[in-house]
């Protein structure tokens, strides 16, 4: 488990290193055009702070990368050679692992529908679907959620006068 975490850290730190290097070399110059009125007049331009941050992130992530790498080598040396039986991967387990991503995909669909068909319809369809996916089989819970959503709708439409899609 520990070794898996360390491996994860190596990948993440390497990713941050690459992204910060990309920002430093490409995105900052291309996305921030210096104002002609300011450039040259001061030691501090609109690019300075982002440059400092990108460089800082690169340095810090490099330290993190090296630290994780050293830990990985140490753990590899001390790791037991006896292999444990791989955990049986049943369909249920895979679904359980994927659940956060399924729910996230559902949230994205909800937001798209929220824009296309409006708040009421999208909420009526998507929230029970989410509860069903999460194995909610108590019909009363669905009613409670609908009641809450009705309250939110009334507050935003009638009280705050915010025109929801």
């Amino acid at each position, binding site marked *: 488990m520990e070794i898996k*975490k360390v491996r994860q*850290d190596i990948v*993440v730190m390497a990713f*941050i290193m690459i992204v910060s290097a990309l920002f430093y070399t490409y*995105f900052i110059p291309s*996305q*921030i*055009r*210096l*104002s002609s*009125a*300011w450039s040259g007049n*001061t*030691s*501090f*331009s*609109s690019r*300075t*702070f*982002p440059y400092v*941050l990108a460089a*800082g*992130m690169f340095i*810090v*992530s490099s330290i*993190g990368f090296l*630290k994780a790498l050293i830990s990985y080598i140490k753990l590899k040396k001390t790791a037991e050679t006896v292999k444990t039986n791989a955990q049986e991967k049943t369909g249920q387990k895979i*679904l*359980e692992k994927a*659940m*956060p991503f399924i*729910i*996230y995909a559902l*949230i*994205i669909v*909800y*937001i798209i529908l*929220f*824009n296309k068909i409006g*708040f009421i319809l999208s*909420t009526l369809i998507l*929230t029970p679907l*989410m*509860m069903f*996916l*999460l*194995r909610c089989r108590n019909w009363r*819970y669905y009613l*409670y*959620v609908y009641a*809450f*959503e009705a309250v*939110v709708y009334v*507050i*935003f439409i009638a*009280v*705050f*006068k*915010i025109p929801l*899609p």
Partner: protein
Amino acid sequence: MLQEIVQSMLTPINLIMMNIGLAAGIIIGALPGLNVIFAIAVLLPFTFDLDSLAGMYLLLGAYCGATYGGSISAILINTPGTPSACATMFDGYPLAQKGRAGDALRAALVGSTFGGILSCFALMFFAPMIAKIALKITSPEYFALCVFGLTAVIGLSEKNVIKGLLMGMFGLFLSTVGIDSQEGVQRFMFGNMQLLGGFKVAVVMLGAFALSEVISKSREVYRGETGNANIAKFGKSTIKLKDILKYWKTMIKSSLFGIIIGAIPGTGGAITAMFSYNEARRSSKNPEKFGNGSIEGVLAPETGNNAVTGATLIPLLTLGIPGDACVAVLLGALTMQGITPGISLFSSNSIWVYAIMGGLLLINVFMLLQGHLFIRGFVNIIKVPVIIMLPCIVVLCSVGSFAISNVMFDVFVMAAFGLIGYAAKKLDFPIAPLPIGLVLGNLTETNLRRSLMISGGNPLIFFTRPISAVILAVSFISLLMPYIRKMIDKKKAAKAQAQV
């Protein structure tokens, strides 16, 4: 002036908002896994169309309520609702097992109110004084203070200082998106005009704190792991107020700890509660009772953690620097209302700032009333299944982020930060430095720029001025603190082993 302050505080809408915020805060705080930041972030959308005072009262109510609410689940199910209620568990749960849950809850309520009220007085007394001192602070010192605000929070990340630092820098980076206020130059907009004003703090908060919670909780819910099976029976309170108040020394001491620790950026309720608990045990006549169900053991941490609530507002209102992530959300709400915290607040808008302080005092009184009258209802909240909450949070986050500027783009940004928040949790990156970096970004950059302009581009200006040099040195030490602590622990362990 006093009459004006009282008049502005006691309008029906303000009183209603204080109580709604409190009730929502207590409910959210009582639910294990949902913390104070979550409570404030979720209520944030409701403040957009409110008057600035009413909006702040709603959020301050949630802040105080959730801090107290964490004790309910700590006492009844041995799971702290919020991190600051960890120490309450040590004696709260044993008391509940002895059938004295009502007594423990009452002690927590009285302690929380006491700490909260004392903290308000500290805010009223110290804030104007610090504001006067702050008038003398110039750009290099301000920059150093911003760095301190950020590093203090990162230093709390314990074993994840590097990850905390990266999150803080990411927050600062996000603050650079949009139009640069000094030069009027577009930055990182990638051709999207919706990013002209930069990322909205409220949108980022809703995603990173609230929506990410939905995503990570979905797995537990699917596994059916969210039932609170071991809820201790709620026994009616039989303890008298005088039996609680006989520990007045502990309450005052814990309040002072809360005020002092809370005023330092990057600390917060969890540290204070633990500190107060240890000190109460150390100085108690019956230390053996601690851990086995001592009323004093519940009082000390609860008084301490609520005493933080007013104190954390001292650096926020006087310097515009948030002490922790909760206050960073409050700062975001203030900015959206067009209010810039800092010295100017005391000179130009003093009625508003004193109304906030008075309101906080009133909120603590209402907390005592609500806790006394509705405690049974709040206890039942723990039984609410998480499956009901998840879709409600999704709807609230979506509607809330849309309501900020009536554009769908904000809803997508919120969803993106939901994923970032979830990934951060999975990869052990602390989220708290992100909002602090985001809200401090502009202030940090402006003061860095001004300082370098004064010095003609020489960064030594920060080290040649004594105050900024000291603050920066403290910031550096606070970053190294987890490593220093680790070294001390190692040395201690080696010494102990050598003795054996």
